[in-house]
């Protein structure tokens, strides 16, 4: 196996009953790479994320992350190894504040313990102060406004802002691999551009961070992804740079239909 492989999913099959949501899918990712994952709705992209993050155990296949096989591990384990994700319909802790959500993102960097809370309260408080400052600093990269109102409950936020908080939360967990499930859904083009710029900025800052991004907006993909994988009907139908993908007939068909594929 190559040394700079961050993730290598090999021949993944995920079936639900008779339905194969993923059919013999292999994807690999180098460190510091941004990979775009595209395909029509229901083509298995999110299922792939669920398999990698341990929510589903794959029916067949191996997933090597930093050289250890994580296929079938629990979500907690996978997260602790450094694989973090966002969700298609954002899954924040809704009744909690922006800041609480961000702090919880840093849970793994803590060793939370009820006894410390009682015996070393001062230390806990100080720790929270430091962590909160870091969290808000990260948040400010995505949105000054959100960082300026850390005590707003996330359930009051517009969907777009929730996505920002969610990405920020994932980054605060110091991931080695970040899986973004349609981070720009529901954003307008300028917001999307801004978000992609921020993600890139964060990636550079993190030094070693691989990103897989599911996105429908081709602008986003062409802009950010170095390599693109295309899914359709649970299979990988193409792989390459965006330029190559664009010319691929099968891909055009999947998106535009036969009639317009040649237009």
């Amino acid at each position, binding site marked *: 196996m190559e040394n700079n492989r961050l993730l290598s999913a090999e021949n993944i099959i995920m079936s639900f009953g008779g339905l194969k949501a993923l059919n013999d899918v292999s994807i690999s990712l180098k460190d510091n790479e941004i990979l775009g994952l595209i395909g029509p709705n229901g083509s298995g992209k999110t299922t792939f994320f669920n398999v990698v993050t341990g929510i589903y155990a794959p029916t067949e296949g191996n997933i090597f992350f930093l050289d250890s096989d994580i296929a079938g591990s629990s979500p*907690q384990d996978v997260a602790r190894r450094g694989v973090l994700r966002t969700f298609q319909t954002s899954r924040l802790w809704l009744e*909690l*504040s922006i800041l609480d959500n961000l702090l919880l993102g840093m849970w793994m960097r803590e060793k939370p313990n009820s006894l410390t*809370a009682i015996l070393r309260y001062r230390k806990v408080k100080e720790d*929270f102060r430091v962590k909160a400052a870091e969290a*808000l600093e990260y948040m400010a990269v995505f949105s000054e406004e959100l960082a300026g109102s850390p005590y707003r*409950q996330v359930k009051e936020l517009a969907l777009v802002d929730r996505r920002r908080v969610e990405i920020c*939360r994932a980054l605060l*967990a110091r991931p080695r691999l970040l899986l973004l499930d349609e981070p720009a859904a529901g954003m307008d083009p300028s917001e999307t551009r801004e978000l992609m710029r921020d993600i890139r900025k964060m990636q550079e800052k993190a030094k070693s961070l691989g990103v897989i991004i599911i996105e429908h907006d081709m602008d986003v993909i062409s802009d950010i992804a170095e390599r693109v994988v295309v899914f359709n009907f649970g299979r990988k139908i193409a792989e390459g740079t965006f330029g190559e993908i664009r010319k691929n007939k099968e891909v055009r068909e999947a998106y535009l239909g036969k009639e317009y594929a040649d237009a």
Partner: protein
Amino acid sequence: MNKKNGFLPALITIVVSYVLLMLFMGVDNLIISGAIIVFLVGGGFFIYRKKSLLDCIVAGFRDYKGSLLITAVVLSVLLPLFFLKNHYIIHIFTLALIYVIASVGLNIQVGSANMTNFSQGAFFGIGAYTSALMTVKLGLSFWIAFPSAVLVAGIFGFLMGLPTLKTREFHLSLVTIAFAYVAYLLILNMRWTGGADGIAGVPKPTIFGLSIFKTVRLGGLRIPWTTFYYYFTLLFVGIGIYFAWKLHNSWIALGWNAIREDEISSKCYGLDLNKIKLSAFFIGSLYAGAAGSLYVHFVGFISTESMAFSVGLLMVCMVILGGMDNILGVILGTVLLIVIPEKFRAFQDFRLLFYGIILILMLIFRPQGLIPKKVRRYSLSTGGDHGK
């Protein structure tokens, strides 16, 4: 904003409610008591409707925690002095304090972590029985029995937590209900627990070998022993709340909240769900054990009546009424649910009916409870404090 004038309204709110509560308990006239209740409810509703005043009071509570806390402590300390002639009322307030400990513990599960536990009454009973058995049968001192009771209840809480790890919501509730019944039936049917007769003659605690819980006369003043037990309990309540408050502002409580809001998300951020759930069960049961032990040494007698399923249900009512995940609210809810029905003893039979109706009304009209949970605040070094 309202920082300048927040203190006074908050202080007035506390003092007025306190005075009304004292009057309520002190007068021996059902009509006046009823009038006070109406006044309290009406006043509360008025404040609730008048947004600016409410905000002002809330801000006062937020910004002047220290001085208001001292006020509250002073008022609680003064409380028995109004009722030296009527030691029954002190008895009621002591009971209320004991239940406060149990419901603050239950709040960790029901309020913070959304684990609907109906068996807090059983843990209360386990604590009480442990303490009673150790002092009556083994002749040990309260100071050994109390910590043992706390720990035994905690261990049982932990054990009950184990089968709930794979379950949620109604399955979890079923586990707690089953546990409550099993504990009740076993204790009722075992010989060494006294069976249906219970255990009587549980001694009062002694301090350095001195029995301080005695009625004393100071000149013409007769101070009933309950007064001292009230203070004794108040001390434990103080410690319990202090710990609960520290926990509430720590990482672990954040973890409880996280599993309340979204378990899948929590898993994907590396939160150890088992550990977090078990800690909530363990710590909550410690509180129940402490309350049970204090109860049995106060009343001197324990039977399975005190740990029936309805006791656990009552404790859930206290948490809901006061406000889930808000310690202050839970204290308020508990005191109200213990104290108010006492005044209407003529309607003793309606007591459970009253609890049921209160619970339903709260769920429909104010599910967040009298005092809703607050967003956690941290001391921020940067100027990020302009949040609402």
